[in-house]
């Protein structure tokens, strides 16, 4: 009997063997197998002691144990607020490039309230052109007046270089607090590229052509 101690598991007060496994303590409190068991350590903002199910611990009278799961939240990306054509293009972009996000434009871009920011998380970089990565995140701004306003320019990571350098018409800028290299596009009026720059899908494909050219364009 002297080997029994009184502990609290969750809000239940229970008697348990002085030496017990995490699984035994968890079961004594009526917890299932989900989550992690912690022994509450004194101190309001100090870390508690995690205890694995197969770990044998010495319990003392008055010990308090709790089981906790991670806190999870999220947000199904809601494309409904986007212009219909952009919504469709987002779906197409994901079919082509996989993970593609769209967000309100960060405030370190001038006139940020006029744009969305689309990021293709792993844009394929063509091999054999001197680029030092096989894929990289590529971002570009999309005007909120999508369809009538052109897209222009894209952002790549600072560390993505071609033969050790950045190309012509490229400059260092901050995007969402991170240094990026911005490539201008400047499609010529009346050309095919002008028309392509009206669509996020064709614009994203045009970025590949730019990578094909390497630096110097």
């Amino acid at each position: 009997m002297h080997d029994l101690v009184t502990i609290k598991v969750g809000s239940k007060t229970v008697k348990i063997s002085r030496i017990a496994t995490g699984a035994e303590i968890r079961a004594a409190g009526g917890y299932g197998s989900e989550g992690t068991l912690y022994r509450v350590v004194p101190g309001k903002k100090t870390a508690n002691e995690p205890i694995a199910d197969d770990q044998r611990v010495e319990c003392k009278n008055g010990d308090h144990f709790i089981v906790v799961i991670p806190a999870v939240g999220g947000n199904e990306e809601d494309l409904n607020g986007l212009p219909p054509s952009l919504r469709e293009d987002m779906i197409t972009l994901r079919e082509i490039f996989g993970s593609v996000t769209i967000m309100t434009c960060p405030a370190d871009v001038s006139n940020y309230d006029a744009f969305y920011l689309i990021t293709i998380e792993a844009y394929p970089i063509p091999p054999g052109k001197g680029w030092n990565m096989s894929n990289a995140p590529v971002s570009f701004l999309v005007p909120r007046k999508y369809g009538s306003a052109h897209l222009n320019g894209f952002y790549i990571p600072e560390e993505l270089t071609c033969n050790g350098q950045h190309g012509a018409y490229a400059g260092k800028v901050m995007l969402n607090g991170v240094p990026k290299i911005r490539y201008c596009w400047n499609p010529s009026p009346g050309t095919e590229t002008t028309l392509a720059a009206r669509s996020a899908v064709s614009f994203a494909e045009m970025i590949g052509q730019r990578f094909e050219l390497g630096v110097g364009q």
Partner: protein
Amino acid sequence: MNYSLRLPIHLYQEMLKDLHRIHGVEQAVFGLAGEISSGLDKTFLLRDLYLVPEDQYISHGPSHFEVKEGFVSMVIKGALIDTASIVMAHIHPLSSGDANFSGIDDGYEPKLLQYIQQALPEAHFICMVHHPNGTWAARVYPPDRSRPAPIENLTVMGRPTRNLLPTNSPARNSPMDMVPEVFERQARALGRESYRILRRLKVGIIGLGGTGSVVNQQLAHLGVGTIVQVDPDTIEESNLSRLVGAGSRDLGKPKVDVAKRVAANTAGGTHCIPIPCELDKPEAFTELKTCDVLFCCTDNVSSRRLANRLAVQYQIPLFDLGVSLKSDNGMLRYGNGEFRPVLPGGPCLECMGVIDQDTLIQEVQGLAGTGYLNGEREPAVISFNSLMASLAVTEFLSVFTGFTNYENDRATIHSILEGLIFDASKALDPDCDCQSWQGMGDKLDFPLRQ
């Protein structure tokens, strides 16, 4: 049950800054909350924050976050220590429109709730979602239910105090109040919204003597919705020179009755709750703890100390004012008017050194007496009282309608003899007792007298 949440402005700003720490990425902030219960109303009081360090995320991105169990266990431990409820706020950077709970939130909150309730069967779980456009959604899981109820009002307590009105609040559909002709000119100065703000406020006045009676009159003229008037005293002849609204026919009547009559005679239709007792009696305390703002207009340290405790514990802005005069053979030798705001998160009267312990014990030991210090009547002049009352009411308007341009919450001393104004502001004392009371609400016993 109608639910509200009060957020002291310093905690609200800290929470907001952390939620926006990385643009376009979901982030979470946890907190602990005390509460005030009154009938069908329950108001939560945010009193502490747990900002999630980057290494405590399992992962987070544009459309999700996952915080490690170890961090969540620390928040639960904090709630166990404070017998508090748990707040979890996060941002939805990608959603269109306004803030709203997602299907993911709907699915995971009840799961986490189970674990919170197994450790804390009495705790509420308050969930908030923020959108980069500034909107909020808020809801609460009561201990006995797995389905959440909307939080109707999110009030940021500070300068200015404002209601963020969650997107899921039923109060959002209330029609806008029209400004009646009687308040038209006032609204031109304070803003059209000021009428609605003042109309919905419940203001407590502790002490309806020389300063409190002026505050009472001004609040009623301004159109404050409800005034709780608390004073145990009856009217004496020596009060008549400065007690607003009192005449010789009122001798022997409770001061709160005259205050009610004065307020009722204004055009604003203020609802009055006169309570002829000390503030530490249950009938006064029950009404005062549900006020939106308090004015402390007493002439003694003991009730000032209790008013201060009430304000801090229940996160109610308090405006403390008083006039202290000393005379010698008919000559005024000393005359100071003092004004001190006690706003949630800021220094309290004890931090400011206003609660003199020697005077307190003198008063407590001689409590059966007249309430006048040392049994002597101090000098009193209505204009001195009115000066300080007007200052306090103007500061109240500044905090609640935001019509002023300054931000610091200054305590001031007005030297009546010298015509000078001194800044008497003090910083919050981290070792002050108020740190253990603040935002606890009903979770901590208030020192009531039976």
